[in-house]
């Protein structure tokens, strides 16, 4: 038997658990839920001609395609992340990670950042995993360092970067070092000054109990819907910004120096493209100086509108409001430093 964690749900549980009124509303709520799903599908079917008319407008069609593309592209990675997260919830005993991992931030944070090399995937998958690691007793600062580094420095991303910049291995090296430094520094800053209380672990509540497989299933189901829902918000935001703000608007800003640097970082935040693809996009900005393109590749996997939505949904809005700006600033500084040194 595995009893999965439900710490901060304890209060909720006491409030709702034995209340007969709640039982009634629960089961009514469930029927209502299924009814709503059916209704939405039906309504969409009725309004189909309207949708088709909308898609005849190029801007709306462009938005819809980018939106659906981000969601479809993220699904395999999200499923991978959710599976790993649910597996950890079901099969890793509650205190194991806390016992075997170093507890000193100065050791744990760099180690976790470096461990990001081992998770091939893009950023959508690493959010549920990091949340689960915190839940299982990993030092939050270390889990956050892992969250930032995994999408940026895994082998698939590095190989993609090498392909996008043929004959320029220094770009791959610069990306690796700048991302690792940024993830470690953010982790260490969080360890010193961050408020772990801000990590509202909405996810802890659900897991349920029973044989490991059933815990795994319940967790996966919950994480998938939760992360998936926020992914939708992020994808819609990114698609809107991509449609409304043409890339050329930011590129023309990208003449030189600091302005180019800021413009490319901003572009990385609003484009929200997969970390496995961003090197190819960075390569297409031929007029932009190399350090600014590096910033695009370092910032993108760590801060973008899709990730901010996922982080806000997983760890709470108050957390994301501090963590995202901190990460953005550190990632920009790190790529400025490494960019002007190596590129």
């Amino acid at each position: 038997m595995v009893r999965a964690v439900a710490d901060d749900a304890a209060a909720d549980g006491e409030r709702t658990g034995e209340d007969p009124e709640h039982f009634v509303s629960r089961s009514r709520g469930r029927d209502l839920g299924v009814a709503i799903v059916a209704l939405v599908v039906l309504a969409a079917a009725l309004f189909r001609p309207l949708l088709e008319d909308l898609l005849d407008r190029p801007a709306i069609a462009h938005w819809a395609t980018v939106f659906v593309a981000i969601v479809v592209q993220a699904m395999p990675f999200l499923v991978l992340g959710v599976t790993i997260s649910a597996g950890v919830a079901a099969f890793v005993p509650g205190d194991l990670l806390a016992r075997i991992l170093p507890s000193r931030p100065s050791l744990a944070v760099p180690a976790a950042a470096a461990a990001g090399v081992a998770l091939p995937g893009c950023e959508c998958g690493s959010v549920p995993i990091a949340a689960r690691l915190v839940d299982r007793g990993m030092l939050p600062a270390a889990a956050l360092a892992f969250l930032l580094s995994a999408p940026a420095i895994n082998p698939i991303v590095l190989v993609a970067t090498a392909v996008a910049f043929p004959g320029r291995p220094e770009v791959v090296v610069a990306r690796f070092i700048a991302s690792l430094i940024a993830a470690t520094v953010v982790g260490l800053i969080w360890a010193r000054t961050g408020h772990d209380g801000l990590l509202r672990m909405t996810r802890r509540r659900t897991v349920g109990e029973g044989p490991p497989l059933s815990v795994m299933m319940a967790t996966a189901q919950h994480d998938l819907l939760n992360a998936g829902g926020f992914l939708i918000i992020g994808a819609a935001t990114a698609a809107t910004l991509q449609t409304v703000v043409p890339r050329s608007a930011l590129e023309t800003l990208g003449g030189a120096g600091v302005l180019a640097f800021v413009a490319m970082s901003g572009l990385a935040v609003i484009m929200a493209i997969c970390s496995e693809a961003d090197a190819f996009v960075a390569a297409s900005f031929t007029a932009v100086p190399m350090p600014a393109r590096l910033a695009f590749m370092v910032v993108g996997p760590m801060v973008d509108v899709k990730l901010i939505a996922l982080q806000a949904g997983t760890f709470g809005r108050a957390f994301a409001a501090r963590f995202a700006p901190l990460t953005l600033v550190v990632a920009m500084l790190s790529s400025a430093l490494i960019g002007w040194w190596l590129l």
Partner: protein
Amino acid sequence: MSAAGGTISLLIGAVLLRLTFTGTYGRYVRVGMGPWLAVAGLAVFLLGLATLLRSLRHSSAAGADAHDHGADRVGWLLLAPIAALLLVAPPTLGSYGVGRGATVDVRAGAPVFDDLRGNGEPVPMTLLEFGQRAFERGGASFNGAEIELTGFVAETEQGGFELARYQIACCAADATPVVVRVTGLFGDVPPRDRWVTVTGVFQPGGDPIPRLAATAVLAIAPPNDPYE
């Protein structure tokens, strides 16, 4: 929202599987991602099915879905892409995004090409290769051979049009266009966003956009793999 959640997962899985097996997914992501989408779709479908069955079996026990919190409600948003994809699959990216940003850099890492040897048949190639050949040795490798390019019309002009096709690395969100200028047309120019196969010969010129002097333009249906 256990039963409703299971239903949503079931629908997501079904939509992903449908996208994969109809080939429609090629409009949104790299065609190589097909197997991964199928695996993810199947996993989500089975997860939803199991959750739904379990929730129905435990329908009398309120404990089954004992955690209906606000955090779960966001999952409803997943119905948006489900509804969109089940009913009207958004089209492939078209001319709207061309000219709104950088185009593919044909100079970066362009290979050195062998000269084409004409055997009378037009040589099909990607717009990217056309651009790279045009850049390398000023297009000498074309050797006067007839070339066949497939893409969509991005912009029409007098006596020709801009032919474009997107390169994608991961999904349509990272699409970057490659553009070739098609010249030498008399009479009607195909409208914007029409997919065409153009046959013609490379035309040297000082233009940053490589040129193809067309001998034939054939309207076609959008291909299954619309990106390069």
